[in-house]
């Protein structure tokens, strides 16, 4: 559907994908009405620092904002904050919002993100039991992050481990509980899991795998005080942080009859089953063109890219490049950079030595590189991004050979 005559565009959400979409629309020459409806009070902001530097209190809230307030005025973007959309009426092309009110749209971008999974256990509603998703969460958690206190973190994904690193560095006593036999089990290989387990233990974090939380006990004033584990152990718990994954905020779309399946289904242009409606970021399930399947990606790269894709499709511009998916995680002085998606690999090649805290794990499938986890190793990460996109065959021996630079390896593979 040609939407180049769209005069009213509504964007739902205030995260990375929403911010990118409005920026790309304005930079792309769109001069019609543009409204952003965000559930949170803050100006659209970046989330990655919430579990890293921002949690430590290393910088002010303003530095999280994508754009200062003046930018929205200068660019004639109508910000409707502290307000949720409550329904999409596709027949008359309106969005209903909280506190009354309806917005008309010619094109709609749903970038409502995701929400933390709840912990379905006794005591989960006690005080000082938190999820870590938005600014308000950090504002609640940070005053409790006092040296000497005990924090129990449920879930050893990236959020849980990043928070554990921050807590440990702030002088708290951190315990991480993980149901699976290893940390990061859902997202990476045993090589990386072992590396991070060793690192966190060396830093003093108590990592307990194959262990879940049975219940939480509180004090008389309703604050959490003890965590009872699946093996019967009882731990002191002044703070409990739950990081057991997220769920896509797809309900608005689903209730409006738009196709969803663990995410709002979109095509390569970020367009949903309704040609006037787009979805971008955590809430969308998209074609992963370099990997021959569809899925949700929970990442900054994905949010930016889909924001750009949706804007380009609405403006009738050619489709921006669909780049190799990439991610990063900061823990202690370790920078992990990930390119590609390792799911389905049949071979792992380690380049360098994990003990040097500088190495990379390459994932191959049928002799082709599909992903890399690079620790303090930007060349391995950046070269792999290109190699993964090219789909070139590459030998395990060459990847493992640190006497050959990644530049040479990339050059060889593209010449082959």
């Amino acid at each position, binding site marked *: 559907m040609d939407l180049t005559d769209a005069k009213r565009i509504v964007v739902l959400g205030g995260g990375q994908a929403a911010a990118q979409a409005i920026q790309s629309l304005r930079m792309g020459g769109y001069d019609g009405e543009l409204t952003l409806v965000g559930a949170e009070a803050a100006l659209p902001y970046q989330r*990655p620092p919430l579990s890293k530097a921002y949690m430590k209190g290393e910088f002010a809230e303003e*530095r999280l904002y994508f754009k*200062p307030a003046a930018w929205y005025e200068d660019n004639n973007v109508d910000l409707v904050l502290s307000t949720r959309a409550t329904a999409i009426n596709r027949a008359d092309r309106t969005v209903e919002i909280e506190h009354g009110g309806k917005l008309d749209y010619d094109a709609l971008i749903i970038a409502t993100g995701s929400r933390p999974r709840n912990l379905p256990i006794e005591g989960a509603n006690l005080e000082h039991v938190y999820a870590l998703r938005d600014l308000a969460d950090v504002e609640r958690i940070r005053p409790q992050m006092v040296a000497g206190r005990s924090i129990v973190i449920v879930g050893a994904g990236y959020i849980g481990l990043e928070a554990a690193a921050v807590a440990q560095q702030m002088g708290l006593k951190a315990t991480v509980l993980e149901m699976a036999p290893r940390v990061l089990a859902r997202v990476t290989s045993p090589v990386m899991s072992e590396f991070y387990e060793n690192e966190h233990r060396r830093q003093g974090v108590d990592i307990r795998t194959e262990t879940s939380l049975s219940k939480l006990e509180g004090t008389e004033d309703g604050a959490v005080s003890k965590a009872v584990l699946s093996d019967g152990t009882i731990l002191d718990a002044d703070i409990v942080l739950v990081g057991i994954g997220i769920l896509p905020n797809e309900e608005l779309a689903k209730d409006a009859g738009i196709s969803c399946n663990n995410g709002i289904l979109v095509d390569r242009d970020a367009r949903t089953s309704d040609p006037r409606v787009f979805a971008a970021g955590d809430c969308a399930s998209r074609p992963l063109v370099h990997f021959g399947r569809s899925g949700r990606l929970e990442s900054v790269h994905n949010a930016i890219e889909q924001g750009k894709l949706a804007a380009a499709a609405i403006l009738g511009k050619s489709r921006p490049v669909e780049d190799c998916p990439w991610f990063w995680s900061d823990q202690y002085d370790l920078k992990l950079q990930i390119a590609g998606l390792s799911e389905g690999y049949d071979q792992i090649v380690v380049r360098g030595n994990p003990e040097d805290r500088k190495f990379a794990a390459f994932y191959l499938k049928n002799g082709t590189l599909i992903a890399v986890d690079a620790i303090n*190793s*930007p060349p391995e990460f950046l*070269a792999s991004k290109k190699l993964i996109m090219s789909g070139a065959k590459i030998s395990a021996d060459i990847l493992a050979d640190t006497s050959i630079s990644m*530049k040479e390896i990339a050059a060889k593979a593209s010449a082959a």
Partner: protein
Amino acid sequence: MAKITYIDHDGTERVVEAQNGETVMEAAIKNSIPGIDADCGGACACATCHVYVDAAFMDKVGEQEEMEKSMLDFAENVQENSRLSCQITVSDALDGLKVTTPESQH
């Protein structure tokens, strides 16, 4: 505070008042300077805030750390005065700084 001039690859100049403590990348993003993407928001993870630093300021913008060096090694069209602007912190000493943005960050 420092006045920073961003020059795009066409030669268009844009002058920004940057605050001490923020980075040259942040000052650019806040002011919608084209040519700097900064996808990772300043985590030194993406190499999309590459700039060329004016020769007169090369000794004032600070040393590159190892991470930045190896990130830049893989950027397109790297020159001796290439830096990642998220790794340059604004101070009074940078008043008058000029940086040029490359044609593309990817």
